[in-house]
């Protein structure tokens, strides 16, 4: 059990989300960086979908009210336990009355923005449509559909297992955090609306992540992408219709929209299920975790891949969760 001393900017309870309800307008939600989250859970002997804590940047302060095995993964933020730095990507024992704290820092001095705290046994939270993921806008999951609040108690879902050894994640396999991210995408369905030089620009530009960024979506700035003259069945459309506007259609997680101003928005885990803007492409599943680690002023390069490649990347990524990546060492107290 933890007590929330300070809730931080936006600390939420997450699991791997609630897929399958986009047709009702309910997003998948879940850990924005699913890779770090899964590794965290595996480090403490949990199932990959057990509930953990997603921490954004700084401000969170937790007090342990019992001895627990936990692991912290994801971005290497200014994290302290009883004022000492902590090693990420490994399980460790936290004792009753230990304090974990996320301190402020200069945004440009770090890579990534979200850390995950996974607790052996997982956390108790509101189960809605098969998931406890907090979706703040919809008031779903977590504790009363809200981010953590001061004085709240975070209760373990199951009892502590008897640990004889702890796991440390293979150093060379830790996902690479950066401030310049490569996002692999599959083009479509509306790439044909853009002129060739704009499509070219999509891939040659170093896009800038703006401050308009959240779990809902990520707005990028860069050159304005131009649409071809809009035609419908050979007829030129009236000027009043913005060329970026298309008949409203379903949009997947990682969908890359081009809005009226020519700016780009990438749909995040809490994003809309439907859009009226042209979807230029979609970030491949294996790179979705990066969307959860992007922060303002990071750079993005888009790389075009084919479907076969996207599948291969996902297969390769799965190896990050294989047994041999988790080294066991005996516990010494």
């Amino acid at each position, binding site marked *: 059990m933890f007590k929330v001393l300070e809730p931080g900017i936006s600390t939420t309870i997450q699991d791997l989300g609630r*897929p399958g309800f986009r047709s009702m*307008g*309910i997003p998948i939600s879940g850990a924005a960086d699913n890779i770090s989250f899964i590794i965290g859970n595996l480090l403490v002997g949990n199932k990959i979908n057990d509930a953990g804590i997603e921490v954004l940047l700084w401000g969170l302060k937790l007090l342990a009210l019992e001895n627990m095995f936990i692991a912290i993964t994801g971005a290497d933020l200014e994290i302290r336990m009883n004022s000492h730095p902590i090693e990420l990507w490994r399980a460790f024992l936290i004792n009753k009355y230990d304090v974990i704290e996320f301190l402020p820092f200069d945004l440009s001095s770090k890579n990534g923005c979200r850390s995950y705290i996974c607790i052996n046994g997982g956390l108790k939270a509101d189960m809605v449509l098969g998931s406890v993921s907090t979706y703040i806008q919809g008031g779903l999951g977590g504790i009363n559909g809200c981010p953590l609040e001061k004085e709240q108690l975070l209760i373990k879902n199951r009892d502590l297992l008897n640990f004889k050894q702890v796991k440390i994640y293979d150093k060379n396999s830790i996902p690479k955090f950066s401030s310049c991210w490569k996002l692999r995408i599959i083009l479509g369905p509306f790439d044909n609306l853009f002129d060739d030089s704009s499509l070219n620009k999509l891939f040659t530009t170093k896009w800038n992540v703006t401050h308009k960024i959240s779990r809902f979506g990520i707005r990028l700035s860069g050159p304005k992408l131009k649409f071809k003259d809009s035609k419908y069945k050979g007829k030129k459309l009236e000027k009043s219709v913005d060329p970026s506007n298309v008949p*409203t*259609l*379903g949009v*997947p997680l990682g969908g890359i929209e081009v809005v009226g101003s020519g700016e780009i928005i990438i749909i995040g885990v809490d994003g809309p299920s439907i859009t009226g803007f042209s979807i230029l492409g979609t970030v491949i599943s294996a790179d979705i975790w990066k969307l959860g680690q992007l922060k303002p002023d990071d750079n993005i390069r888009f790389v075009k891949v084919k479907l076969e490649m996207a599948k291969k990347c996902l297969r390769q990524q799965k190896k990050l969760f294989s047994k041999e990546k988790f080294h066991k060492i005996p516990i010494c107290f």
Partner: protein
Amino acid sequence: VVDLEYNFKAILLKNAILRHNIKGINDLVVGTCSLLVQYDNKILSFDELKKTIFRIEKAVDYNDELPSRIVEVPILFDDRWTKECALSQKLDPDFEFILSYNNLTKNEFIKNFTGTKYWVKYVGFSPGLIAFNALDQTKIISSPQLPSPRIWTPKGALGVGFSGNCIYASKTPGGIRLAGITPILTYDLKKQNIVFNENPVLFRAGDRLNLYSIDEKEFLQIRNNIHEYKYDIKESLFSLSKLKGE
């Protein structure tokens, strides 16, 4: 004017895919004239998926009838809640704008607006939000979107847009001008009414709405007793020819 024919076909195709109960398909999102299929490529390859969907599509008879419920939706037009919302955000009231844009009096507007059934094109954007269009083409009333969206919209607000209308299911931002508000819940996780026992979202793509005008007293009576409100939903069928003809 929005052509609802493709929307009808998308819903028919969605239902056909659902009937086949294909392992690996996670979600089917109906758009105005599209169907987004989300699948798990560990279970189903893209080529298999494509083949399967094309096979199902080929077998769909677009002259088939579609289950299409008729849902009665009470609306308080020109209400104080949406007015207060506009006022609090320093915006002009939308109702007057919609009247003058369409050159109608309040009574003419209400008569016109409630004088047709509406077709629910899709559910989405945010949880439970629906977009719907008049089935009677002579009764279409439209209004351009706000130049800059509202920060919040009251739950149940009725929006009159440029290519269709909407009902906001929860307090969310929005850019469609508002003409009224419904006291009924359209999205509810707390199951305050038995209608939400199985599904937190009231409407489905392909429902038909019958909007009717109520006064503020009736509005409050329904909203304050929502747990015992009897949702008026009739099971029915609808076809493409009726859609084109009505």
